[in-house]
């Protein structure tokens, strides 16, 4: 028995929401802004299309091989060796994903709040907490996501509403000055995050039977789209075309809020809530990485390898990039390729092959 806990569809939706929108509101707007400029706010819509495709791929694979995730499905579709090879590729990519997210988080805390604290302390502490959560299993993740996300949504809504005073509507115009292309380019960066919705594949086996999976995951996608849209809009409205010069752009927006000379520096609230959702993301990534590793090696229990995976995630966090700028360059170039391949293209190929295999099996009969 690898995991005995079960989650509801709603908890799944909350986890997915956290996974995409936690770091999607951190450095992503700045990445997108550099490419999309004034069409920053259109990009999430293109990204969401990719997200939808990723979701549909996961659903398709789940329909053909229900109750299994991609690590288990791959050997069935491609045969033992090739399947294990693909699985290994997934393990590496997952751990890089976990590492790069940990690194983004660490940089965020370091730059904004604790400039003189060693990175090891920040990284180690969050990884420790996430490791504990990952050992607690999927049930714990689902419930903590359920507990944390409403707080995040509430505070972000308040912050966006409060930031309206600094908005300048002229920043939106002209819409699509240089055609569709800039927004699509930004959309590709956005799709990097949206395609993470494919990780729902790892949650499918744990959802209670009879839950409306499709409805909840679409709601989750919609929620993510809305959040990123609003965040990007507010960034664009406040900073205009220069939005990409700030790494943590939305955080800068919250610093602009000032009412009655007293309600200012609300960034502390945004930080506090960010920590909560980023924790869900990192814990989820560590959890699925250890689960996938255990499944790949056919171990009987994933729990003992959680701490080694945590260590690796911290290591990969250090190795992915020496500075946040290098990380951003990586995400804009190699990273986007790698993750799109890993989260969309390979699943699509797998689905195609699986589809034909099933059809051939039916014919053979």
């Amino acid at each position, binding site marked *: 028995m690898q995991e005995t*806990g079960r989650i509801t569809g709603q*908890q799944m939706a909350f986890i997915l929401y956290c996974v995409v929108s936690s770091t999607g509101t951190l450095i992503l707007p700045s990445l997108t802004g550099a490419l999309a400029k004034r069409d920053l706010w259109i990009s999430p819509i293109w990204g969401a299309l990719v997200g939808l495709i990723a979701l549909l791929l996961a659903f398709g694979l789940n329909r053909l091989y229900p109750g299994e995730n991609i690590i288990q499905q791959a050997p069935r579709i491609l045969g033992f060796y090739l399947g294990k090879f693909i699985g290994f590729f997934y393990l590496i990519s997952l751990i890089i994903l976990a590492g790069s997210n940990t690194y983004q988080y660490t940089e965020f805390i370091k730059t904004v709040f*604790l400039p003189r604290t060693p990175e090891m302390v*920040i990284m180690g*502490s969050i990884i420790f*907490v996430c490791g504990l959560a990952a050992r607690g299993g999927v049930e714990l993740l689902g419930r903590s996501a359920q507990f944390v996300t409403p707080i995040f949504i509430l505070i972000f809504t308040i912050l966006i509403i409060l930031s309206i005073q600094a908005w300048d509507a002229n920043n939106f115009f002209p819409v699509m000055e240089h055609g569709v292309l800039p927004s699509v380019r930004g959309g590709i960066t956005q799709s990097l995050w949206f395609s993470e919705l494919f990780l729902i594949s790892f949650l499918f086996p744990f959802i209670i039977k009879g839950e409306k999976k499709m409805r909840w995951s679409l709601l989750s996608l919609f929620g993510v789209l809305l959040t990123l849209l609003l965040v990007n809009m507010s960034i664009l409205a406040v900073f205009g075309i220069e939005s990409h010069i700030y790494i943590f752009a939305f955080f800068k927006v919250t610093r602009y809020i000032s009412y009655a000379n*007293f309600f200012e520096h609300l960034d*502390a609230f945004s930080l506090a809530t960010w920590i909560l959702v980023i924790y869900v993301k990192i814990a989820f990534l560590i959890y699925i990485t250890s689960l996938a590793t255990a499944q790949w090696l056919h171990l009987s229990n994933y729990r*003992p390898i959680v701490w080694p995976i945590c260590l690796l995630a911290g290591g990969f966090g250090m190795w992915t990039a020496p500075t946040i700028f290098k990380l951003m360059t990586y995400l804009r170039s190699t990273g986007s390729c790698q993750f799109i391949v890993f989260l969309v293209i390979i699943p699509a190929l797998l689905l195609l092959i699986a589809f034909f295999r099933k059809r051939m099996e039916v014919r053979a009969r």
Partner: protein
Amino acid sequence: MIKTVSHGLFFMARKAINRFFSMFSRVKEKVIGVDKRIVVISMRKRSFRDRRKRLKQERIREQAEKKLEQRVGEVSVAEELEVNINYITKTLGDSGDLITRCFTVQATPDRKAAVMYIDGMADVRIVDQFVLSPAMTGIEILRTKGNLMELLQESFIQSGEVKVTSKMKQLIEALLYGDTLFFLDGENKGIIVGTKGWDQRGVDEPKTAAVIRGPREGFTENLRTNSALIRRRLQDPDLRLKSLTVGERTKTHLSLLYIEGVTDQAVVQEMEKRIDQISIDGVLESGYIEEMIQDNMWSPFPLIQNTERPDAVVAHLLEGKVALLVDGTPHVLIAPAVFAQFYYSPEDYYERYLVSSFLRFLRLGSLVIALLLPALYIAFVSFHSEMIPVKMAIAMAAGRAGVPFPSIVEGLVMEISVEVLREASTRLPGPIGPTIGIVGALVIGEAAVSAQLVSPLMVIVVGLTTISSYANPNYNAAISLRLLRFPLMIAAATLGLYGVMLLLLLIILHLVKLRSFGVPYMAPIAPLRWSDLKDSLVRVPWPFMKKRPKIFRPQDEKRQQGGDDSI
């Protein structure tokens, strides 16, 4: 060929890795807890250490039983009166409060009889008027030649609770519980007459969880008075009362109350099972039981609620929970409990819904203040002073200008001295109580500020924290939050706001993981139950609460007519 070899190698490697890791992983029997449709109650995790403890407990229990066996054992009542009296007197060690009255039954002068009871435990008036007097005089009128024992039992002893037994053990137990024993010469049986009647405190207003609107009655130390207080409010034939005994020496009586057809039977069974596993020499308060049956004994949060109010117990019973009455204490245990109910007051249901909803928000706010305010103060002052609004920052800096300590030292000293004050005023005899308040306010508040040992703002923070922690109607929940304040302050002093958030995350993780008798502790928020949110942060008007809370899995969900179609 290569394929088989590599295949074999792969599986061998897998086996080896598996074995390697299984050394570190304790194989635990974890029962599936499904958030939406929980069928199985999660058992308490029994690790190896627990098993050793259980074995030890069994040994102690065996020894205690052996002791009792040695002393009383299977001894049955003798025919000779003298032997019986001597035996009981010797067993109790010539106890001074054991009263033995020998007399002759008038109807048959040759037959001697004796009455034994313990002074102070039995009601002497009942013994005199309804046991001794009819037996000594009444039989004279009747000159039938019936079986005297049967006659005595059937018509002469004028008491409702009469039992005949030949087992000495049973007789002694009854004697020690305040009953009177009746022996007749020539009969190898004794009669137990229910004459329990010791002095006790009357029904009084409860000292904890005070209300403005609501019943004023509180539980007493007497088990039967308490169960009567509940029955008077709940005249339902389905109310079940199971009697249990715990404590090898104290023989404390417990009553397990629940409503058949409402309460989830699995909870009742689990409760009985856990109580059955207790083996201890004495139980003096329900706290003993609480600690021994709760799901997670290391948690700082209370997993079982206790109350002194019969109306609260009835309300919980109607929600499908189980109440455990313990003899000798006015605190009744209620399980399962969820986190939310620790900031409810029974008054929330008596007062108008708007008022109670507002009060609940207030309590939740004060809970957050009690937990976080000192930590946030320390974090902002020592790490993130740029985040404080400018004017306030200047005022704070001015207040702190002459203070020689870092804010964490200042905070810890103040918080600890307030805790000391609180503890002192709780333990002090009544009349001296106010002195502590004056000394505390003068020394800690006024003098410390004017001596510039602490900043005025810190005094405000500490004062606000203390008051907020008292706004919680449940003392045991409030005190656990007060305890968590200290690690939070230390986290704030080491990593600032980030440290506070990390520790808060750990607390959330812990809370979300907890279960009380199979019910997730953070329900109805995580796992989310829309229909149960009606009675959580807010309390909607009664006409809208047509169903019992689903989180406790009641067998009968309806509580009002017409509750079928609404959520």
